[in-house]
């Protein structure tokens, strides 16, 4: 006998869905621990805490400089990351050099945290092919086709599992990206093979101008992972400690052969969608943006670290100056890279070009292009 009436209570099911995904929080908006038990259990060293802060500051400075350079026309495509320092940098600190990153177009900070040189990130922004040469860093270029990184991450994760590796593939998309068929297919396929993957949906409220509630009537985007049969959680995406701990636990789960995990990080894109003419005030209010600044991940973490005697304005200023000069060097390095050649584009398309392409290569080489 089934409990028919209960099963058919659609309203109750919708209410239950909302309760199934409580938000993981460790630090509150004032930088105080709200989950001492989890913090203690996670056993994060002081060095780790400082390193996470540094990664977030580096992302902050990189964003400041990149958006300025874009305004001056010295960079091409730039997607601001302000507000997502915890969701991007703090999560990425949970992964190792052996883990493989599949970034979306906004996920440049995670690539840089992994060792991708800043000057190459600038070249990528400018549309220079050297910006797509990854070297030994286990990352791909930032994916433009939203969702593609999820299905590909599933493939890397399956490959790692088949090779018996103790590493994971981790990948990020947005609340908009969660609507793509590929995003679901990636989670579902990785889930079916119990492959070593960690998926992030960075719910920053908007996909260009489209608000989160227009993407899906699911109360929590994390619930999409349940459809794929994988553990799925919601995390305060502006709380660096919650982000780091969640990512670390998810990695441990995946690496131990249990299959993938989905983490939805609740955050805000405090700045425009990209530096190519988006004006957020066309689709959201100033008050809304200001309210989100109260959750600023940098301030919360700064207060927390200062309380532990691990951070100070002095340390912060020195570190920011260091990052700034690192970025100055990167700009110079990017500026010194020779112009691209049309003949190289043709050569880079095939290992063995045919007759017509050979003809074109010769023609452009002859013209010095």
């Amino acid at each position: 006998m089934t409990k028919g009436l209960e099963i058919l209570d659609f309203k109750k099911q919708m209410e239950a869905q909302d309760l199934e995904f409580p938000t993981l929080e460790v630090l509150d908006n004032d930088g105080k621990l709200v989950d001492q038990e989890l913090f203690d259990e996670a056993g994060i060293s002081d060095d780790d805490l400082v390193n996470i802060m540094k990664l977030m500051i580096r992302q902050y400075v990189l964003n400041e400089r990149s958006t300025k350079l874009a305004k001056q026309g010295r960079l091409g495509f730039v997607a601001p990351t302000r507000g997502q320092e915890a969701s991007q940098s703090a999560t990425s600190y949970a992964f190792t050099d052996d883990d493989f990153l599949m970034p979306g177009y906004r996920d440049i900070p995670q690539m840089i945290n992994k060792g991708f040189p800043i000057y190459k990130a600038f070249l990528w922004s400018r549309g220079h092919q050297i910006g797509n040469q990854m070297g030994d860093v286990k990352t791909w270029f930032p994916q433009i086709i939203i969702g593609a990184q999820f299905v590909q991450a599933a493939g890397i994760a399956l490959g790692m599992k088949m090779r018996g590796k103790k590493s994971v593939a981790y990948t990020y998309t947005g609340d908009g990206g969660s609507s793509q068929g590929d995003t679901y297919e990636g989670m579902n396929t990785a889930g079916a093979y119990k492959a070593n993957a960690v998926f992030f949906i960075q719910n920053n409220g908007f996909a260009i101008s489209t608000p989160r509630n227009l993407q899906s009537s699911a109360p929590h985007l994390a619930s999409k992972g349940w459809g794929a049969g994988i553990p799925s959680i919601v995390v305060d995406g502006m709380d660096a400690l919650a982000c780091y701990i969640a990512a670390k636990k998810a990695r441990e789960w995946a690496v131990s052969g249990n299959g993938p995990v989905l983490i939805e990080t609740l955050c805000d894109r405090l700045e425009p969608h990209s530096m190519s003419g988006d004006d957020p005030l066309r689709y959201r209010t100033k008050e809304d943006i200001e309210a989100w600044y109260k959750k600023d991940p940098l301030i919360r973490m700064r207060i927390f670290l200062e309380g532990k005697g691990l951070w100070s304005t002095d340390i912060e200023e020195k570190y920011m100056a260091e990052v700034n000069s690192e970025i100055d060097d990167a700009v110079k390095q990017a500026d010194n890279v020779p112009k691209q050649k049309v003949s190289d584009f043709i050569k880079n398309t095939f290992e063995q070009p045919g007759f017509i392409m050979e003809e074109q290569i010769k023609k452009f080489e002859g013209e010095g292009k």
Partner: protein
Amino acid sequence: MAVKTYIAAITEALDLALERDENVLVFGEDVGENGGVFRATEGLNAKYGKDRVFNTPLAESAIGGMAIGLTTEDFRPVMEIQFFGFIFEVMDSIAAQMARNRFRFSATKQFPIVVRSPYGGGTHTPEMHADNLEGLMAQTPGLRVVMPSNPADAKGLLLAAIESNDPVIYLENLKLYRSVKAEVPEGYYTTPLDKAAVAREGSDITIVSYGGMVGNCLKAAENLEKEGISVEVIDLRTVSPIDVETIGKSVEKTGRVVVAQEAQRQAGIASSIMAEISERFILSLKAPIGRVSAPDSVYPFSMAENDWLPQVDDVVAKVKEIVEYD
């Protein structure tokens, strides 16, 4: 007649179509309140309400599939794919469904869908944003592919596309959006589909072109006139099916042809045009058919675009080569 930009002509056409027929629906990513990432749908959501001009979730496959489904309720969907490089996400709906459905239903059902999308290079977009993928569409029987080269055509062709009961891929050139201004007739009018235009008359040689490349060809023709070469420019307007009659008349008159496209040599429409000309008008030709195109690499990321894309000078050089051939 008022002078308008290419994009303003498109917005006006959408406005007129929405006003004229309440079954017309305009939807896609960000087309609602924000008016589209290029503002092509600016003001339409406020004027016609969010039931007729609306944002969709970020899912191209759903946008295309939904358009197909909406025709069953007698709507006339005008869907937007934000950039043409994202068309691959919805290729099943477009190539395997929309294009074949009239045939599959044995001509008992119509699929009055317009797929609008910006395409074309030279504006330094990130990768996958500028590709000239019209060849993929044109190789699919059942899809009409329309590529206006100027504001007046942009308006008239879009209105004709929305009136058409067949699916139309309507491609908007990114570079033309705001760089071109020209007179656009007032009010509702349609420009016939499948009919090429003689964009400029001439007697020594014919250039056949379409979309964003037509402007370059007209400039080349002006330059060549100073050197005493009289160039006729044919603007295809619809690139599939091709108007072979208009091309034929011109070729019979001039005896020489250059086909110019922005797409890679193997990727655009040029090869079809050349094949049609050689099959039908070979005896009128006094020289081989010349071709101007981008090289056969993947579309490069923005930085060296202008070295890669065919320019006015490339058209001029190719025309001279064909004119000088005996």
